């Protein structure tokens, strides 16, 4: 899976929980919560969406690794393994 694919997946999931947000403006190193006015329930829905799209289990302990776009990319790339270049 390419980095681009992962990025698309993340943005699509964000779009579902915050449909009014301008995703092009998202800064990769800032927390979603601070940019998009989302709360823990939204975050939960975001993680569930990622889980469904990429078919990976995300343990609760790993939730803190999914707070920014950069963190997400890194975490998911590691989880999806060698395909990600």
């Amino acid at each position, binding site marked *: 899976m390419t980095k681009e694919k992962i990025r698309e997946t993340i943005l699509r999931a964000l779009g579902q*929980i915050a449909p009014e947000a301008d995703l092009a403006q998202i800064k990769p190193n800032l927390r979603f919560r601070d940019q998009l006015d989302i709360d823990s*329930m939204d975050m*939960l829905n975001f993680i569930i969406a990622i889980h469904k799209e990429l078919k990976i289990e995300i343990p*609760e302990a790993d939730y803190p690794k999914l707070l920014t776009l950069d963190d997400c990319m890194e975490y998911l790339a590691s989880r999806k393994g060698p395909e990600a270049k």
Partner: protein
Amino acid sequence: MAQFVMPQLGADMSAGKLLRWRKKVGDRVKRGDIIADVETDKADIEVEVFNAGVIDKILVQPGERVPVGTPLAIISEEGEAEKASVSPEALAGPPPAAPPAPVLPPVIPLRTVRLHISPAARKLATDHGIDPAAITGSGPGGRITLEDVQRAVQAKAAQPAPEAEVDRQTRMRQAIAAAMARSKREIPHYYLSTTIDMNRAMAWIAQANLKRSVEERLVYGVLLLKAVALALRETPELNSVWSDGKAIPSADVHVGVAISLRGGGLVAPALHHTDRQSLDELMKNFRDLVQRARAGSLRSSELGDPTITVTSLGEQGVETVFGIIYPPQVALVGFGKLVERPWSFEGQIVSRPVITATLSADHRVSDGHRGGLFLAAIERKLQAPDTL
């Protein structure tokens, strides 16, 4: 060949019971002969035959009750061959339909809260896109009258025409303003607060979530909701609606959950029968409710009938909430941020996750003593998370 059918013997007869045959197979009958006795709801009646011939076949035996029109016997006409080619069924046509099984009416749950508004006022408000809940009624018993809505229409007209989105937000702001102003004007609030050790609850949830897939995992918020719902059973007066000068206890517990909307504003839709849902159901419904609230697709019943409201502002970092009751409810529970604090436990100072729960309650309906018992019950429930 002719059929002899169960005759209609009165305007209200739908079926009859054959009591006895006066004739047997092979007997010759003529028009007007009494052929059988039939019992109706009213009486036993001798029935006559309208065809001449020989009784070929008897289709219904004494003691049987059959609908009017059912063939009882076949009579072959004089000289007719005995071996009739037409079956009795073909002659009879389709049998009369059996009476339908009784259908039980669906059970329709009662709505516990209803806006007091005249039909004309409701229509005018709808025509002008005004939320009637945001209007204070001046009529008898607080009924919103046409005049009240006309005033609201004028007030709205006086404002510059806003963009659609701004309009929605303005309306919501107005609704919140009206409800909160009314609450502060009419309801004598009292406030209680307690800090709850969440150690066991959080440990239980972490354990429980280990076995759960992503979609099934619980958040501690549902434990708080369930604890509140169960505690209400012990102090039902807090689960009431104020109407016409008195509190009317609600039969069901529908906890309203305050949900802030992106871009501002607030709704508090109900999680129906909160006390009767399992944690898993509650989690699923809670998540669904938040999503739908933010998508603007709530059902009117969810908005109309909460019996108490729970608000949690912990995400914003506050520790204690002093809430305003949403009329006609009589209580509101607030939760602050889950924080690590030094805690005395069995004589030791330890670090524990704790949360501050507050109660805002209507003093017309309950007193501080009962409110205190209610908060204590919430705490007790949270210390036994496996029983929630």
